[in-house]
């Protein structure tokens, strides 16, 4: 069975279970609409959903871009300058410890109700996984490789560029995968506290109007988008670190 067919069967099975539960237990549609009702609404309002999804997608992608750039820069600085490490490390931890939900209303007051606070929120939420993973990778270069390079007279910059960064790429890839999965949270949190468009805004509005099915439709679109982003990034990363052998843990058991 192909790699795509399996998750699809699991997904369809879950949908059937859900529809079955809604039908059998006669759950009121305002508490939990069945997947059929959700799909029906999603088709009827495809235009509106696409418009809001577009806004959210731009926020997620820009947040990913900024967060990754910022994270890479921070990790490189921490790995390269001992001074930067003691300055940046606490900031890094704090950036993760602060609940973005608490910060969101203030960010909105600072940056206005446009796209900026959503990007800031997504950036903030993915900054930690990217920085932490990349920094860890940079620290754990095989000492033998560095020794060899030094013996052969390589400069510090050359060692970084030719050995430490490539060696850290698999760790960086893990960080970026986590970031890709959580970036939508940042964007939607931003929309939750203040916005005039986006899937988060639409969900809030539909919740207020008790159109639970429409709210779930937006949730579906968001989930599909998140999965697509994750797999797109995953595929790119695999190509980037194609030399990294992959062991299948199941093969050893």
């Amino acid at each position: 069975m192909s790699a795509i067919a399996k998750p699809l069967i699991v997904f369809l099975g879950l949908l059937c279970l859900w529809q079955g539960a809604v039908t059998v237990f006669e759950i009121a549609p305002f508490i939990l609409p069945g997947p059929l009702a959700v799909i029906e609404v999603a088709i009827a309002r495809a235009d509106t959903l696409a418009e809001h999804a577009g806004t959210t997608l731009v926020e997620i992608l820009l947040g990913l871009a900024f967060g990754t750039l910022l994270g890479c820069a921070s990790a490189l600085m921490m790995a390269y300058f001992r001074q930067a490490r003691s300055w940046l490390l606490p900031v890094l931890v704090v950036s993760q410890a602060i609940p973005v939900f608490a910060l969101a209303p203030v960010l909105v007051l600072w940056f206005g109700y446009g796209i900026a606070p959503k990007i800031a929120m997504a950036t903030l939420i993915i900054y930690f996984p990217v920085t932490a993973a990349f920094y860890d990778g940079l620290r754990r270069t095989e000492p033998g490789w560095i020794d060899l390079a030094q013996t052969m007279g390589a400069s510090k910059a050359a060692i970084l560029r030719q050995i430490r960064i490539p060696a850290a790429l698999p760790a960086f890839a893990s960080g970026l995968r986590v970031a890709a999965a959580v970036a939508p949270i940042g964007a939607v949190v931003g929309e939750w506290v203040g916005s005039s468009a986006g899937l988060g805004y639409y969900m809030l509005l539909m919740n207020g109007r008790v159109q639970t099915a429409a709210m779930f439709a937006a949730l579906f679109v968001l989930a599909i988008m998140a999965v697509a982003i994750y797999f797109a990034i995953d595929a790119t990363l695999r190509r980037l670190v194609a030399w990294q052998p992959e062991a299948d843990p199941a093969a050893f058991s």
Partner: protein
Amino acid sequence: MKRLLFALALTLSASPASAADKLTVMLDWFINPDHGPLYVALERGEFEKRGLEVELIPPADPNDPPKLVAAGRADLAISYQPQLHLQVAAGLPLMRIGTLVATPLSSLVVLADSPIKSISDLKGRKVGFSVGGFEDALLGAMLDKHGLTLDDVELINVNFSLSPSLMSGQVDAVIGAYRNFELNQMDLEGRPGRAFYLEEEGVPAYDELIVVAKRENASDPRISAFIDALEAATQYMINHPDAAWELFIKGRKDLDDELNRRAWRDTIPRFALRPAALDSGRYQAFAEFLKGRGMIETVPPVESYAVEVR
């Protein structure tokens, strides 16, 4: 997440509430002077006298209480008349059984020194709102009266930050700000506001705060006892506003501030003197208004979602 925990806590606490005299009442918002009669009734023992043990619970999200009542997770909820119409249209089995505040409180607020002198000056401006689902209908009606449409303004959901977003200049106006609360809040912050009153600008008058029950429970004797207690407390508040204020802040010292004192004074004339009384014509007119604005598809008979309890 907070909401999930809240619903969970409520499920755990409210499910054994079937004892004959226990009544769980969800508020619409954190405790504020709009809830005066409820707390005065509690402190004066009006509920106890009628054999009721009432628990008042502020919600995590103002849109939740009616849904929790419809789902049987709470007995009564404080809600808003415009929202009741939408919720009934969405199939929620709800019934209005009493009125707490009998006039609109919601208003469109701008800064006192704003160049917006009339609703028609809103053209091209940003208007903030806190999602209840019906704000665009109210604003649309106001704009209509002045020859504008919703496309002439930008509506922005500012969630709970109605006055902060206005005071910081992120939006030019907010709709849904309470005349008794947000106006005082802005005044105290040194950025006074100016209100346009919905019912003077093309929106039919409605009951801002109502009490809703699950439809099948509307004739529960506990409910008429509850409304009775509410009426007694309201009368006491009108007759003894200062003594009532002391009861309101009793054991809730965090409420004792200048904002709540001012809001208290401004809210007293807004309370329904006859909480049980129902003006069917008004509900009918508002439902027709919402239908005209495309918010609901049909106008159901008033008696299917609002009653006078006996």
